[in-house]
């Protein structure tokens, strides 16, 4: 068992921290208020190799692996969780293309995605079920050289700004995963939801009305759509959500700690008052525990373990990190008193982000279902 990070992983953490402090911190509040995809920041991140972090070099990726990705998302999310969430969601499609796409599809889409010029959304959820994806009703009918798509998707993260959408549709009795490009007639983004948190990554509805896409736009094998879709969520979406939660928790803890060391009451820093100190200790212990669960799940992926085999580990990471993130944000606000509610201390923004991430990549209860299924087998 080796618990240390490699020198390169440490340098990555330092680099991402410097990037977050330099490029993200000054604008985090205003970007959040704008509620738009942070295209400029995404591009800068791509130049540093961060967007293609789990993609092969031959397609423009930097191929540093899942643990590196976890560290990157954590550091970014300490300061601007919305951008962390862009990685959570945007990299699912990049993984899916590389794992299941044809050579033509990989060459066509991946380089521009790795360069941060385009983004890809992953659309599975419908009104009839997100937690029960087998209940989807979007259909794909093969007519000659084209698939004709009809249906609606809901709560699709990044659907509004994505150039490419990979979506799940029924093909008769089975399912397929398909690619549609923005601007295709019959494909529209009719509605965007107002989010409580992670506001730079708006969640949208997608509508397909007799939308015709080329036959080649099937991603992976016909009939394997659901498993490709869920594999992407398990390997990339869920660890991504865990990483964002870890960053949110870390950011809130660090803000509370810094405040407690500086704020003087009764002639000393409040960090010396036992009640406050114990609150900080509890936060620290929960944060460390969550961190090792998250890092372990990412490390296992780097060891080549199949996402399905380590489903429980990945779910535990997301479940725990997201739970503690919510707890730590509230406790941080308590430690900071009235000042905790002021925007310039950022913790209320982090709390909203922590709440928003609860259902990402599967609700907390779905995590329990998967873990429960694993332990009671």
């Amino acid at each position, binding site marked *: 068992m080796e618990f240390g990070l490699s020198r390169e992983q440490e340098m990555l953490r330092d680099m991402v921290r410097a990037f977050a402090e330099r490029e993200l911190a000054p604008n985090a509040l205003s970007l959040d208020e704008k509620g738009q995809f942070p295209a400029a920041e995404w591009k800068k991140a791509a130049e540093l190799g961060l967007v293609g972090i789990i993609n092969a070099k031959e397609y423009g990726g930097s191929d540093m692996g899942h643990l590196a990705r976890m560290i990157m998302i954590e550091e970014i999310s300490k300061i601007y969780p919305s951008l962390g969430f862009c990685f959570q969601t945007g990299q699912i499609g990049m993984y899916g293309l590389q794992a299941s796409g044809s050579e033509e599809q990989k060459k066509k889409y991946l380089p521009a995605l790795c360069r941060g010029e385009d983004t890809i959304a992953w659309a599975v959820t419908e009104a009839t079920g997100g937690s029960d994806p087998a209940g989807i009703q979007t259909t794909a009918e093969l007519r000659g050289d084209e698939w004709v798509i009809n249906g609606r998707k809901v709560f699709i993260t990044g659907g509004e700004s994505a150039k490419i959408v990979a979506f799940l549709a029924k093909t008769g009795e089975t399912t397929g995963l398909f690619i549609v490009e923005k601007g295709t007639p019959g494909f529209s983004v009719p509605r965007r939801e107002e989010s409580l948190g992670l506001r730079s990554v708006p969640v949208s509805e997608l509508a397909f009305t007799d939308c015709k896409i080329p036959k080649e736009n099937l991603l992976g094998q016909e009939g394997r759509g659901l498993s490709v879709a869920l594999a992407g969520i398990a390997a990339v979406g869920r660890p991504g959500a865990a990483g964002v939660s870890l960053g949110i928790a870390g950011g809130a803890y660090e803000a509370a700690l810094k405040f407690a060391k*500086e*704020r003087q009451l009764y002639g000393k820093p409040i960090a010396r008052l036992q009640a406050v100190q114990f609150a900080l200790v509890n936060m620290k212990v929960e944060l460390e525990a969550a961190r090792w669960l998250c890092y372990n799940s990412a490390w296992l992926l780097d060891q080549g373990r199949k996402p399905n085999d380590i489903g429980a580990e990945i779910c535990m990471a997301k479940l725990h990190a997201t739970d503690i993130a919510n707890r730590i944000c509230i406790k941080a606000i308590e430690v900071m008193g009235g*000042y905790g509610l*002021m925007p*310039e*201390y950022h913790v209320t923004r982090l709390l909203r982000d922590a709440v928003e991430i609860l259902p990402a990549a599967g609700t907390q209860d779905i995590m329990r279902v998967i873990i429960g299924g694993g332990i009671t087998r």
Partner: protein
Amino acid sequence: MNEVWIIAEQRAGRLMNVSLELLNKANELASALKVKSGVVLLGDGIRQMADELASYADRVYLVDSPELRFYQGLSYTDLVTGLIAEHEPDIVLTGSTPIGQDLAPRIAARLRTGLTAHCADLYIKYDGDKPLLAQVVPGWGGNMLLEITCPRKRPQMATVSPGMMPRCESREHKGEVISIQPEIASDARIETLEMFEESTPEKPLEDAEIVVAGGWGLASSGFSLVRELAEVLGGAVAGTRPAVDSGWLEKQKMVGQSGITIRPRLFISVGASGAPQFTIGFTGAKVVMAIDQNRNAPIFETADIGLVGDAGKIVPCLITALKNSTLCR
């Protein structure tokens, strides 16, 4: 010869204030050691300046030549080390100005002697019966004070930050001006071509040695009080978040949690109650003075000197009192 020297600094015929501050300290040290004080002055057309300096020191070593109009690194080093080698002063002080910091280290290296930079204080201490120059410097971001000595090598060299020490006041000396006309070989490898000095400096807030910041409490008396006070001190203007939000000054001048953190020598807060998001911006300041209407305002916990009262009345009185002090720039 055991003299205590300073290397004076002049720019375009104007003597830098730090030279008079050094000279004051040099005379003090010379008196403690019972030796003479000396000034090294290099430049072009500075005979009169040398004569004036002679009323502050025992000796002025003057090198007046058109070649020396601008600071020339290698020529100045050659000349000063030549003078030091000939006269063997015990102590040589320089201002830690950009030019002083460029010149003094090279001289020290050539003479293989010790140099301590940015001294906050200098005094004589005794090792047995041997007098040594004790050099006090702040270290580690100002959290520590170190005392340094140079026991074996001579001269003992130190640079002093401008504004750290009081200036020479009395002009009682009747020093002699020793004019030297050496062969000045200008070195073709490096040459200062021109010097540009701005009349209205707009330094970043972080570099200002003195900062005056105004807060919400100035709503009735007006933010202009802050500007006037800053002007008389030669300091920079800053403000709290409410002051910026009220449009009294630009966002770049905001001190605090969501603004800038600064560590000036002197920080004055006018009309700010002292919310933690503000006070965190200046905890590293050397000296803090606060003016506020409310005697219970938390700002007074974070200040060395607190003045309770109406800023509209206090600030004008401060300005008058400052104009008659050494703090006026």
